[in-house]
Structure formats: C-alpha cells, structure tokens
C-alpha cells in the first residue's frame, strides 16, 4: 500500500493493511487455546450425515463391505476422524471389510494404524477388537487406480489374486483365503462400498462402481462437489469434514428419532435408529469443533475489518 511519507497512516489505511505476521500470529493463538478446553457444543446434524449413519445402521449385522481408504497423514485432521467413526460403526455391527487403497502408497499403513488405535478404544468400552485376515482383509495399495476400480466392479476376485495379507502372529497368506472373501462371487455380495478420501479418487470410484451402493467420507473441501452426487442419489450418504464427523459422533451418542435427546429427522420418519450412549463416541470431531468456531469467527472479523477500512477511506476521499 503506497503511503504518503510525511503523514502517519490513517485509521482506514491501518485497517486495510495489517501486517501479515500479526494476522498469522492471532490465528496460531486462536487455533491453540481452545484445544485445552473440552466443551461439548450443541449440534444439528445435516441430512447427508444422517443418511450416512442411517444407511450404515441398516446394513445387516455380520455383513460385508469394502473400504477404500485413500488418505494419508497430510489430511489427518479430517480423514482420521472420519476413519475412526466408520471403524467404530462397523466394529459395533460386526461387519467384515475388505481394505484397499488406490490413492496413496502410504494409505494402507495409515489405515492399519488407525484400526489399531480404534481397536484399543473399543476394548476400553467393552467392544471386541478386529483381527487382521479374520475380520478384515488388507489388500494394500493398487497403483493403477482406475483399472483396479473398474475390475472391482466387474471381477472383484481378480484384484485380490496374488495379494498377501498378514494374519496376527503368522506369515503372509493369500488374501483370497480370508474369511471375508468366503462366498463372494461378485461385488454385489458386498453391502456397501465406502470411500474415505481427500483426493480426486472420488471421481474414479463414482464413474466405475455401478453394482454396489456407495458412501463417501470426504474432506471439507470436497463437500460441495460430492454433495451434488449425494443430491443426484449417486451416493447413499455422505460424511464431509469435521462437521460430518461431529454429526456422526452426535448420532452415535443419541441415535435418530430415538427419544428426547436424539436427532429428529424426516428422512427416517417412523423409524427408530438407536445409538450407543456413553460408549466412547467422542473423537476428533468433538475435540476440534470448539477451536474451529474461534478460527471461523476470526476469519469473519478479518473480512469485516478490511471492509470497514475500505469504507472509511472511501468516505475520507469524498
């Protein structure tokens, strides 16, 4: 901003040109301090999240699903919370799953780490931990994402051929021998295809999986795009960003149309879908939601300050 050297900057100019470093500093503080306080904020889940929860709860117990996990630690803040919620839901319903990844080489490892952590959490609240190979089978990373997903749709067994999985405390075994694949002939034998992603693999999956219902868990930035797929009913449900995670955590605590505290929804009118109150449902969503509020408020204030400065200088120049 060009300034007249002889004059001190006016208030309008100051408001319009706060130094970047100051703004950054305020943001750092804003995102840190609230983390030390655990506050449960009131929440009203959106339809996409309610559908995600409702459709998952309607899957048959002991069913079978595919999880395509395409996130890594760079989007840990959102994706890990999503993965945790999904795993909790599936474990509590005893649904077996095939774990695969087309997004990133490191994704299978990160997913396995998360499974280990959720196992420990579930153990604390009396759940049964999942065993690799028995309850879920890890197919690892597929470099040719598009071809692989096409093959999942057309001949799912072919992608598992030659893949090894590691049962606990034993050497590698052929993935196809896992109990998860027992009786599987085609992708139609799976009740749902879940994709947890923070990258463009959503298009890859959406364009190619036609024989199995889809649900996505995406990062906040992908919500608008995927919302249009949800609206066009290409997705059964959608969990987007930390808000989606917080929604699901709320739903797991309270259920849908299930008494006084629960979430009322017209989508499931006349149906009662329970939750698991008090059973370790809080996770990343609850932890980050307060700080998020302060950060968003800061953004709004920054925009207002800039505009006020502009208005003042316009007035001054008249």
């Amino acid at each position, binding site marked *: 901003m060009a300034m007249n050297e002889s004059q001190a900057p006016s208030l309008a100019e100051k408001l319009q040109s706060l130094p*970047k470093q100051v703004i950054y500093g305020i943001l750092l503080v804003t995102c840190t301090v609230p983390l030390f306080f655990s506050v449960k904020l009131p929440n009203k889940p959106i339809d996409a999240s309610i559908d995600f929860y409702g459709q998952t709860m309607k899957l048959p117990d002991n069913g079978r699903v595919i999880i395509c996990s395409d996130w890594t630690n*760079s989007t840990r803040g959102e994706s890990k919370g999503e993965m945790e919620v999904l795993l909790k839901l599936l474990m509590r319903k005893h649904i077996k799953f095939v774990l695969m990844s087309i997004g990133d080489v490191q994704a299978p490892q990160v997913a396995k780490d998360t499974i280990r952590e959720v196992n420990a959490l579930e153990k604390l609240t009396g759940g049964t931990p999942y065993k690799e190979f028995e309850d879920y089978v890890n197919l690892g990373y597929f*470099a040719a994402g598009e071809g692989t997903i096409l093959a999942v749709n057309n001949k799912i067994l072919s992608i598992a051929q030659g893949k090894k999985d590691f049962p606990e405390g034993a050497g590698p075994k052929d993935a196809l021998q896992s109990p998860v694949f027992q009786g599987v002939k085609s992708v139609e034998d799976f009740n749902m295809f879940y994709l947890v992603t923070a*990258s*463009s693999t959503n298009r890859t999956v959406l364009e190619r999986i036609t024989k199995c219902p889809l649900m996505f868990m995406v990062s906040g*930035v*992908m919500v*608008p*795009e995927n919302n249009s797929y949800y609206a066009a009913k290409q997705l059964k449900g959608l969990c987007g960003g930390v808000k989606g995670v917080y929604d699901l955590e709320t739903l797991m605590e309270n259920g849908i149309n299930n008494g006084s505290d629960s979430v009322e929804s017209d989508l499931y009118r006349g149906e009662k879908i329970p939750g698991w109150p008090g059973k370790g449902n809080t996770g990343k969503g609850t932890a980050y939601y307060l700080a998020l509020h302060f950060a968003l408020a800061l953004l709004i204030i920054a925009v207002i300050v800039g505009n006020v400065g502009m208005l003042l200088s316009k007035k001054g120049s008249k």
Partner: protein
Amino acid sequence: MGNQYQDTGWFMIALTLLMVTFILINIYRAHGGKDLYIRRIAGLNAIDEAVGRATEMGRPVLMVPGLTDTTVNAKTMQAINIFAYVSRVAARFGNPILVCCYNASTYTVAQEIIRDVYQQEGLADQFDVDSVRFISDRQFAFAAGVSGLILREKAAATFFMGEFYAESLILAETANSVGAIQVASSTELTQTPFFIAACDYVLIGDEFYAASAFLTRQPVLVGSLIGQDWCKLAIIALVVMGTIANTIQQRGEISKEFKKGQMVDLPKPRQIKQSDTFFSHLLKADPADVKIEREKLPASELPTPSGGGSK
C-alpha cells in the same frame, strides 16, 4: 446380440458419438480454410503484459503445469501447450523462464516441447536445460520447493495452469507476497475461488481448454472449440427438452412401473417420480437379467487347481 448394450443403454453411447462427430466436423470445416469466429478471453490478454513486465524487471517467469498424479495427461498437455506460447514470448524478450514439473513424464514432455519452441524461434543456444525442472512428485514437497523458488528467484510473473489441489493457495499467496503478476487456472473447480482471491487473472472452467485455440489460432483448435460450442448447445437442448418432458409427465399417475427391462404392475397407482420418466429411462438403462448358456472351456484351458502348478 441385441442386448449386448443393455448395461449402458444406447442413448448415452449415441450422445457421446454425436459429441465426437460435432467436434470432428468442425475441425474439418476449419481445415477447409473457413474463417471462424472466437471471442476474446480476458485473462489471456494479460500474458504478454505479464511477460513484458518480467523483462523490465529482469526477473524470471515461472510456470507450473499442474500436479497431475503419476503421468502426463490431457490436462497437463493443455497447460504445456499454453506455456509453449508463454515461453515463445519470453524467448523473444530474452527473458529467463522456469517450468516446475510434478512428475517425470510431464518433465519429459515439457523439456521436449519448450526446447522445440526455442529452436523454432532460432534461439536454441539460449535454451537452458535446467529451466525445465522436476521438483518433486509429492504434493506438499512440491509446494514447499516451488514456494522456495518463487521467494528466492523473485519471480515477476507466475502461471499456474492445469490440475491444482490444496497447494493452489500456497503457490498463489507466496507469489503474491513477492509482487508477481499471476495468471492462473485450475481444472479442479473447487480451487478456482482461491485463485480468484489471490491472482490477477483467472481462467475459469473450460476457458482453460479454449486458451490454446485463442493464442495460436491453429485451425484444428479453433474448429474443435466451435465443435465444443455445438456440443454445449446440444446439452442445453437436451436439458431443456428433458425438463419440459418431465414437467408434463410428472403431472400424472402410473399403475405400472418399469423394472429390470419390463413393465411391472404396481399394487396401487402412485404419483410419477422422476425416476419413472421417459428421460430418466433413456439416460439410465435398467436391464433385465439375461441368462446365456455357454459351453464350458476345455479342461486344458481351464485354470488348474492351486497349490502345485505346472512345474
């Protein structure tokens, strides 16, 4: 054989082929020397200005052809085609350039094409092999590396075109902080608002694909662009027709519905839903289950049981 297309339905295949035909017809027309009109695109006029200013300041022009995963694709090619034009202008001004590539195959293509540009301009000796660089094929390492380059080399003009994801704002804000003129475009629509906030000129949506036609006036590109316009008009017509037809059709009730390739009686008549309409069925096939008796493969061609294998 008649039901071989039942999985996809004939209409979308026909529509795709129609689009292809529109494009090819117009390429043919343009080749015939017809002078075809295309309108101006605001962001593209800025290219010459940006390179000119970089020359005045004696600082480099930095280009990034997007962060396409693993291999080069049509989006990267389009970006490199635009950069070929930028490099041509820069070469004429004798201005240094820097092309930052995200994967090795993009690097190969860019190296080849940009050097070609210098050769065509008769300035082959001025081309520095290191001006086209591979930075990293890891998204945020790439962002850190390019940010470092922008800050240290004090780029005077930056061009970000192609596939950009979350790193878009890192690159654009860094370039903004050194006062570079920025022309940008992302094929990922979700990143466009960030480029709008931080860059001077932004190509939105398929202005990106139109850019090379506008810059080079190659008949093939101009023709293709007009073919694309025909396609868009066809889409407009399809959507309008579908809307009108659905509006009329959804005013009634039905007593039969179409399921798995045949009409099924409903227990009682109900309001027509959108999925019952003629256009919905046209666009999405609902095939019947067909059983086909085939002979079994001879034993010699059958996969043998596992375990031993032919040793």
